[in-house]
Structures are given as C-alpha cells and as structure tokens.
C-alpha cells in the first residue's frame, strides 16, 4: 500500500489558530480592531480543521492524521479559549477608545487640579516653557499626556 497522504488541512488549521492568538496579542496595544481579523483567522482555522477531520474519517486509508487530527483540534480549541480569555481581560482593562483622538487630530482641552489643588489646563501646559531645575528654561515642543488607572 502506498504511503498515506499528509493531511495538511489539520496542520494549517492548527498553525492558523496559533497565528491568530499571537497576532492578537502582538497588535492589540496598537489597535483594538485586531480582534475581528483574529476571529476571522480562527474561523478559517476551524473550517480547515473540520474539513481535515472529515477527510480523514471519510478516507482513513488515504490520509494520515488519526491521532494528530484530534490532538491538533483539541489544542486549537484550547487556543481559542485562551484567545477568548485574553480578549475578555483586555475589554475589562482597556477602554474601547474608538473615539479617542486620532493622530493628526487636536487633543481635547482639559482643565484639572494637580496634586496640590492648582488648576492646570492643556493650553497652559503647551504655552509655558519647560522649567528646569536650574535657571535655564526650554521652549515646549510637545506634551506627553499619560492616562493611568490610578493609585488603588
């Protein structure tokens, strides 16, 4: 009997699920929109895995992948579960930020009290020079605005 054929769909599906999770984790800080492409990759992976399993069960004489099929499919389901968990955590910790100011847009003005109760505005931060510890001052070229979760 000839050597059985390699059931590549199983491996491609498994590889795609890994790529989907890795890509999501890698890009989620840059753009939250990466969730949907990742989900799409998982869908394609599921189609590949299922068709690989089906092919194998239809022609067990023709294709390899009896054990690999179940192992890879189970692992992919685990990876999908991990993706769901990470995405849930991200949604809890990170805001949607769909309407956050984009690059090229003007940042919304603010007027807030600092730790000593003095009011600080964005316009004022941008227009006053940087006060160094010495007497030298430097013109303000830019402002870094950091939002943080808070002291809790």
């Amino acid at each position, binding site marked *: 009997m000839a050597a059985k054929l390699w059931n590549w769909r199983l491996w491609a599906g498994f590889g795609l699920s890994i790529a989907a999770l890795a890509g999501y984790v890698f890009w989620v800080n840059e753009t939250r929109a990466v969730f949907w492409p990742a989900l799409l990759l998982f869908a394609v992976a599921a189609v590949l895995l299922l068709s690989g399993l089906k092919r194998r069960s239809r022609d067990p004489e023709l294709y390899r992948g009896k054990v690999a099929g179940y192992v890879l499919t189970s692992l992919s389901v685990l990876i999908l579960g991990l993706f769901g968990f990470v995405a849930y955590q991200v949604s809890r910790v990170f805001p949607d930020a*769909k309407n956050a100011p984009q690059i090229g847009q003007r940042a919304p*003005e603010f007027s807030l009290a600092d730790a000593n109760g003095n009011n600080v505005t964005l316009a004022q931060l941008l227009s006053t020079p940087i006060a160094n510890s010495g007497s030298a001052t430097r013109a303000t070229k*830019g402002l*870094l*605005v950091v*939002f*943080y979760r808070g002291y809790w």
Partner: protein
Amino acid sequence: MACAFELRGIQRNLAALEAAGVKAVAISADTNDESRELCRKANLTFPLLSDRNAQVIRSYDLLVPNGGEDNRDISGIAEFLLDSSGTVRWRHFGETKAERLVEEAKKL
C-alpha cells in the same frame, strides 16, 4: 500600584523627555490626595491631574466603567504625544516603556 511602574519609568526618563522639549503630565480618576500620595511615594515631579468625575477621560474615550477598586470608573492606560499646537502626533494604548516614549518625543 499597578500603574505606578509606567509613571516611575517616565520620571526616570523625564530629563531625556525635557531635553527633547517635551513635558509630561498624567491624568487619572484619582483624588488630589491620592495623587499627592503617589507623587510622594514614587518621587514624581511631573503633574498628576485629578479627573475625579472622569469628564476628561470620557472626552478621550478612555473610560473603563467599574474597572477600579470598589467598582470605581477609572481610566484605561494610554499615552498621547502632542505637538506644540496640541495636535496628536503619536498615541498608544496600554503601558509602554518610557524609552519608547523618549524615542517618539525626539521625532516631534
């Protein structure tokens, strides 16, 4: 003090940021008292602004409802680099290394 790591990193790199002509300011939903405590503990010399009712955090669309202790509404983590006209030139969501912020500041 989950986030103080990032603020401490910015403090360590404040001289490099200022050398690039960039000031730093940090905003959260903390009270003034909490900010003062954090400034003191972490030796922060840049201003921490208190957005108690999360109005500014909302205007930047960064609100995480019930995300904090006691289900407090808090801010998500984000960094914006503005040029002198107040236009966003770079932004990032989630924590980032202060070294990267310095790198981006130098490009302004």
